[in-house]
């Protein structure tokens, strides 16, 4: 069905506050002329959004194998934790002795993230993965400012997430792109050539967006560090290596986490996320303030970091997301987290093998938690196949990313999907190849709406009713 916009629903407002108040309390010159919000009943609002909810795909309805997005099942106990009144109804300016439980959770989470990543200090403040990147970039900037070095370039692989170059630019750096080699890994020669005294940092994801582990990571670290630059870890794919290796062991200096990806907090239809940043000890003083300290007796907010970049957001980060990640981590423990990665990688390689007879799956064959196939060899367009997948009641992969693979489909099954799910997904992807181009282009047709005119959307630009 077509759901009207809320403005077009007619009923009577049922919201009420019983206390009376006289409008004259405010002088006329301060007042607005008119206000045109909907005046509908709570029931109509609830119905409206309930109907809209049924026009929205969710991981609770089916698998959601968007590469790099890590759409795993978000366990319900973590939602329950974040809904506890004692966590929801506290104000950030409450005296520390009235929020010891909240600070305890944050402190523990800092510690856990340190152990998982083998880094030395953590700030929970960044509000999303990209915000973590920006924070990391600011740390890089401040670090070299402090050292009195004028370094203006950030190097980034051509397979990197778009947020990496965008974050680097926001920090005022120039972006230098290095190509991948024929294994889909960073081309070491190109990297050596790109590195200079102007290099502030190298940003990299490992495993990378092709789902391939950068086996030369130690060599990369050496190249970067020898140049006096910093090595930055984009944590979007951290879920592939829990307990196996870590950014700290690989030689990274700065790491951001995507708690919503790695630690299964709900993605909320596109946020809120949480993007904590971890650093090696020599960078601890640059972290945003406050961080949470423990004096053996009580927890406190420490604002006294000598070279802090200051603040990147209002308070202490996405607390309700931090809570869920904390819950997820203690629920899993060492063994659970290791199993998460093992199963994620198993699922990825299993699905990859089922598809490799039909689709070109370029570069190094052993994948981690995700892999990228190309539809180029099939003569079909990735977009069309993606739309056909939707018609089967499941979500399509990320398409046309990473940019270095033509007609790319980036598939991350995650560890929570079953073999039956993977078999079914493979069947659908294989079935798609039997359809005519015309048929594929007519898809989807079982969805709430069919293909949307994106050109019109951008041209007519209707952004409000």
């Amino acid at each position: 069905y077509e759901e009207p916009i809320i403005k077009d629903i007619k009923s009577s407002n049922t919201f009420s506050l019983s206390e009376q108040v006289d409008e004259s309390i405010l002088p006329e010159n301060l007042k607005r002329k008119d206000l045109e919000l909907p005046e509908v009943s709570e029931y109509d609002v609830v119905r409206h959004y309930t109907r809209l909810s049924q026009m929205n795909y969710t991981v609770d309805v089916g698998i959601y194998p968007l590469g790099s997005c890590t759409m795993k099942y978000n366990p319900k106990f973590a939602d329950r934790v974040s809904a506890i009144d004692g966590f929801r109804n506290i104000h950030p300016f409450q005296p520390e002795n009235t929020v010891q439980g909240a600070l305890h959770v944050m402190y523990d989470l800092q510690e856990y993230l340190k152990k998982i990543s083998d880094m030395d200090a953590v700030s929970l403040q960044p509000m999303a993965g990209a915000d973590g990147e920006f924070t990391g970039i600011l740390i890089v900037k401040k670090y070299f400012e402090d050292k009195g070095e004028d370094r203006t370039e950030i190097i980034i692989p051509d397979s990197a997430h778009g947020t990496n170059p965008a974050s680097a630019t926001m920090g005022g750096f120039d972006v230098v792109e290095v190509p991948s080699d024929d294994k889909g890994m960073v081309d070491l020669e190109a990297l050596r050539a790109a590195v200079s005294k102007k290099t502030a940092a190298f940003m990299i994801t490992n495993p990378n967006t092709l789902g391939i582990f950068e086996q030369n990571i130690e060599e990369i670290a050496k190249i970067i560090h020898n140049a006096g630059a910093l090595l930055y870890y984009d944590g979007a794919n951290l879920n592939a290596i829990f307990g196996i290796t870590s950014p700290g062991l690989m030689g990274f200096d700065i790491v951001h986490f995507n708690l919503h990806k790695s630690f299964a907090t709900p993605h909320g239809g596109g946020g809120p996320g949480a993007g904590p940043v971890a650093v090696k000890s020599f960078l601890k003083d640059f972290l945003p303030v406050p961080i949470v300290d423990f004096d053996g007796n009580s927890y406190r907010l420490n604002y006294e970091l000598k070279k802090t970049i200051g603040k990147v957001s209002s308070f202490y980060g996405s607390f309700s997301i931090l809570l869920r990640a904390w819950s997820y981590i203690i629920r899993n423990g060492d063994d659970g987290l290791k199993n998460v990665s093992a199963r994620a990688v198993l699922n990825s390689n299993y699905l990859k093998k089922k598809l490799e007879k039909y689709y070109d799956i370029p570069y190094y064959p052993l994948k981690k938690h995700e892999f990228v196939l190309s539809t180029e060899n099939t003569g079909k367009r990735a977009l069309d196949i993606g739309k056909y997948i939707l018609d089967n009641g499941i979500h399509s992969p990320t398409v046309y990313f990473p940019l270095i693979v033509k007609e790319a489909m980036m598939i991350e099954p995650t560890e929570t999907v079953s073999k039956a799910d993977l078999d079914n997904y493979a069947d659908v992807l294989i079935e798609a190849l039997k359809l005519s181009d015309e048929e594929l282009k007519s898809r989807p047709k079982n969805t709430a709406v069919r293909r949307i005119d994106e050109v019109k959307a951008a041209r007519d630009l209707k952004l409000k009713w």
Partner: protein
Amino acid sequence: MDEISSMLDYLGIKSTEELFSDIPLSVRKKEIGIGSPLDEHLVLERARKYASLNSTEMLNFLGNGIYDRVIPEAVNYIISKSEFLDSYTPYQPEVSQGMLQSIFEYQSLISDLFKMDFTNASMYDGYSALGEAARMAYRINGKNKILIPESTYDSKLSVLKNYVWGLSMKIEKYKMNEEGKIDIDDLQSRIDGDTSAVVVENPNGYGVIDENVFRISEIKKESLLISYVDPISLGVLKPPGEYGSDIAIAEGQQLGIPMNFGGPLLGIMSFKADYVRKSPGRLIGESVDADGKRAFVMTLQTREQHIRRAKATSNICSNQALLTLAAGSYLSILGSSGLKKVALLTIKHSKNLAESLGNIGIEKVFDSISFSDTLFRIDKNVMLDLAKKGILGGIKLTSLIKDSKYSSGTFFTATEKTDNEKIKALVNALEVIM
């Protein structure tokens, strides 16, 4: 055979260990060190124990950015629906119309509330949205100076500084007068050819409702007017679109989002239509599908990082979609009459609070109308003593603006929930403490 064994078989391997053979032994991790898995019910037990160490049943007079307001339970119901909560960015619009339409409605509702042309589909919080607004101003006019009020909190300034650091923009504070309002002369004297934007706040960092902001568009010259407002106050106050704002920014937490110890929040950004291509973040547009049926879709993605990479207008990827849903459903449930009531009650309660404190000799710093936050003259730091009596409140202005000249300034905040009984409890407690 269980599913793992049969998958291993299919891959021709004995264990999942083999799938990690590409990871050099020299970087292998021994153990994580978090410990054994904890049963689900024990996780909840621990969480409840920790939560019980937070005091939530106290009388709340805290504000200055985060407010304890009435949230209709229906808002919680809506944002808890897993069809929204556990979905992702609507990259496949055909199966994401629910989220897309709800964000489109959020954009529309905020635009109407602010009387601005367009609203983006969210920033992280008010502070970072202000940072993005400054960057956007730079993209629009290429000028370097941002003027901000002296009442800007240090933390907000710090975020703003970080956002414009990469652009080497200069931030300069202008003065406020003795009523706690913009010193028009001082501001005017600072606006020059290099001024990219003037930032005004209403209510401002002193909590004061400032009619001088309505006059800034007349004096701002070539610069842009960035208005930072309280969205609840717009239930009665003149909205930024009515006084010539180019970009309007707000912290949206008050629109149906629990305090949550200060996060996640919702950065609201509205702007004039002309600037849309310079705007950061995500936009949802209306279009039609192959059958000509109305449909919503992410639009102007060419400004975004996943397409434009280093040249994107921002690095925003995950933003605050779920919280736009909270704000949209909150505004829809309250409606014009509800929001107006909430705003008026807030002003009434602030007035009651000031009168009651006045009766025991605690005076306001400024003889102006406050919205939620009122600044009182109290030399002593009363916060911890009040907390012992079950009352939260008494933020020192100097804890927000370190070098403020109003060193005795102490905030107490009212909302629509601050009834006379609560005010009386505060008065009684202050009488004992002072």
